[in-house]
């Protein structure tokens, strides 16, 4: 590699990392947390088969899982304005990713809750706990542990999917690498650099997942 190329890499490092911190990570974190709350609500509606809400939940999960994230993004940012609903780029991306995470993660949470043996519910009920008390104190703590691997998976995927936000004009990590490529004509170099930054973020997340799994397996032999 000649000096010019090395200089390009060095000069583009901070702008890319800045975009990653400002947009990629914040977008992923906010959307994941909001999406998780939504996922738990949807999962509970499905597990307890709450009338009406259950049908809405099934419909929601079906639509979101059955359409591409990219198309969902476009509908929210480019499509809705024609019926008078306008969002700025960042909020639009958050909404799309949140709805997406909510649907996919609701299935993870639902499976995790259903994997906790019925005996746990029965023990809690036999002690006089309400459904909500049993859920909060006994079931969810155990379900949380079970759901760490698939939810980590989901989060890591989301971090990479945030690159789609460039299509709705969010100047996140990938968009920055595209912009710099446009002025320096070094696509291989810059897209590789972007890839490495994504890889670094995901590697850290992998390590965090391992730490969480170790900490949560303190009280079981499984």
């Amino acid at each position: 590699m000649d000096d010019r190329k090395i200089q390009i890499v060095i000069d583009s490092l901070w702008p890319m990392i800045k975009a990653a911190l400002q947009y990629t990570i914040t977008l992923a974190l906010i959307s994941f947390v909001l999406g998780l709350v939504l996922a738990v609500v949807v999962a509970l509606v499905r597990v307890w088969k709450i009338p009406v809400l259950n049908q809405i939940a099934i419909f929601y999960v079906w639509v979101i899982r059955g359409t591409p994230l990219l198309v969902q993004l476009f509908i929210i940012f480019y499509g809705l304005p024609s019926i008078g609903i306008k969002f700025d780029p960042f909020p639009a991306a958050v909404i799309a990713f949140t709805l997406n995470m909510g649907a996919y993660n609701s299935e993870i949470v639902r499976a995790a809750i259903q994997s906790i043996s019925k005996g746990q519910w029965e023990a809690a009920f036999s002690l006089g706990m309400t459904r909500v008390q049993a859920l909060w104190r006994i079931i969810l703590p155990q379900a949380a542990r079970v759901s760490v691997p698939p939810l980590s998976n989901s989060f890591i995927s989301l971090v990479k999917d945030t690159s789609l936000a460039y299509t709705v004009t969010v100047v996140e990590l990938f968009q920055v690498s595209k912009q710099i490529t446009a002025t320096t004509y070094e696509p291989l170099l810059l897209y590789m650099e972007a890839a490495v930054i994504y890889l670094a973020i995901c590697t850290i997340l992998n390590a965090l997942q391992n730490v969480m799994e170790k900490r949560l397996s303190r009280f079981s032999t499984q």
Partner: protein
Amino acid sequence: MIEIRNLHKSFGSLQVLNGIDLSLEKGKVLVIIGPSGSGKTTLLRCLNLLETPDAGSLKLGEASIEFDGRRKIDKQQVLKLRQSTGMVFQSYNLFPHKTALENVMEAQIVVQKRDKNAARKRSLELLAKVGLSGKEDSYPHQLSGGQQQRVGIARALATDPEVMLFDEPTSALDPELVGEVLKVMKELAAEGMTMVVVTHEMKFAAEAADTVVLMDGGVILEQGPPQKVLQNPSSERASQFLNLLTAKE
């Protein structure tokens, strides 16, 4: 203390309880025996409404409930009934993410809203009572089956129930560990706890029961003091079943 009248329960097309009439005085021990599928576990689970009967009536302590299959039972009634009963499960069902002490404290704090220190004190007493002093901070997976079941008994006792319900408490235990659990149960009985026990342990029935009930096909075949039911059953089916059981021992 407990009065059951004409209890019926079916799961789909399977009629599991076919008209059960039973009563139990305070301080007495009722042991229910019978072949698999006789409905004995379902009957037990109706006592704390883990199963809801389709018809009949249940009186337990102050609670009095009529069942008609359609009407939903008032939630508060269910919770109150469950607080006045304690259940011990065949597979212990301890909360794995909590220590033995926390398992016993849980209901006191969450359901009865007791002060944490009072709950801790009471829990330590109960764990000592079942012979597990020193094991308060152990997690269930660190305890043997017999120890886990004794934690289960302490946990069920923590809400000061009027009736203790045991669902085959020793069926999942190694033979060497069965004794320590039966010992705790016998002590409870001697102290005057009203108990309903579903079990295959004939010796326990013979020694600790005031009344033995033998069920089959969702009905009561035999009912009476242990000497009568176990030594001198009046029905053919009962004799068959008891011979099988004593042959196994």
